[in-house]
């Protein structure tokens, strides 16, 4: 009885550190501030409705524009990393105004590299797709599956 108790206790203390690096979600925001792609990966953040995600993406688009105006030193790109206590948002702004946003754990180090790969997949499978309407929601199975392969379940196996 007591042996089982200590086993359970040690399992609880060992588990948490293995999930430090996690990717929670990916957003693609078009140049007008509309959310054209949203996908969740690892658990850890609140599950919101698609409408709430749309509102948040629009807000982020506006805030991003303001952050580039607030620069105390020369012109600025706007926010690249937004940090909270339990997660961070990494933003990649393309020259055409499309924003790729990756929601990860604060310790995640590969967020920029992952976003760059997502951008490549987007260029190959969305922009080169003759059936895709620019600035409209992304409905491409190929894009979906390649993002799935790239990010997987969002948990980095260390």
């Amino acid at each position: 009885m007591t042996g089982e108790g200590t086993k359970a206790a040690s399992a609880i203390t060992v588990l948490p550190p293995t999930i430090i690096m996690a990717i929670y979600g990916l957003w693609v925001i078009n140049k007008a501030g509309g959310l054209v792609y949203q996908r969740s990966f690892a658990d850890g953040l609140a599950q919101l409705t698609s409408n709430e995600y749309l509102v948040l993406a629009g807000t982020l688009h506006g805030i991003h524009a303001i952050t580039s105006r607030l620069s105390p030193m020369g012109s600025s790109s706007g926010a690249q990393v937004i940090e909270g206590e339990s997660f961070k948002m990494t933003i990649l702004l393309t020259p055409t105004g499309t924003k790729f946003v990756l929601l990860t754990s604060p310790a995640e180090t590969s967020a920029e590299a992952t976003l760059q790969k997502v951008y490549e997949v987007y260029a190959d499978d969305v922009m080169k797709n003759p059936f895709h309407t620019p600035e409209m929601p992304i409905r491409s199975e190929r894009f979906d599956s390649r993002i799935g392969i790239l990010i997987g379940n969002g948990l980095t196996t260390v």
Partner: protein
Amino acid sequence: MTIHSLYIFDRHCTCVYYQDWHRTRRPKPAAEGGLLPAVSQDVSAKSATGSNPNSNRNTLTSNTGIVVAVNEQPTPNQLLQTTGPPLTSTGLAFDEEAKLVYGVILSLRNMVRKLSGKDDEQFLGYRTNTYKLHLFETASGYKLVMLTDPNITDNLRLVLRQIYLGPFLEYVTRNPLSTMDSKEFGIDNEYFRQSIHNMVSGLTGFN
């Protein structure tokens, strides 16, 4: 590592204090009535009338090595012109800029809370390619915001906390002449400004 500016907002969403150190893009002075008195002589509409030796304007002048005529009382516009070519304007009046800063931190705080699903989730700050914003919020609703170089590695929230625990408590909270929460006055005073300046300029790499 460079520290650019410090804003303090009270719980009524108003900017009650402002100080800056190295800024090449400066806001225009606030519009008349747009900013509370005693926030910062540097950016308020009547900035030029004060010739206080401890004022931030003089601090800034000695740092950038540009001489501003002290005996004259230039209008705010002349003041901006005499500061020389390295300084450009953001094109925003200071009161507008302060509102934008407050709007950004409030919106981001709400967004971070909503995304995390936790009511006590703190928004820590954000980074762009030219600056980084750090936020420290006190239990009484004061928000201390610091803009620094993006490559800063130190945790500036600790410094903001030190500013709150040190100069703020000593020269604002314990100051019988300082009217906190009044919605009519800022919290600027010479001792507060000077001790923040001493604290910030003593940070490693402040230049």
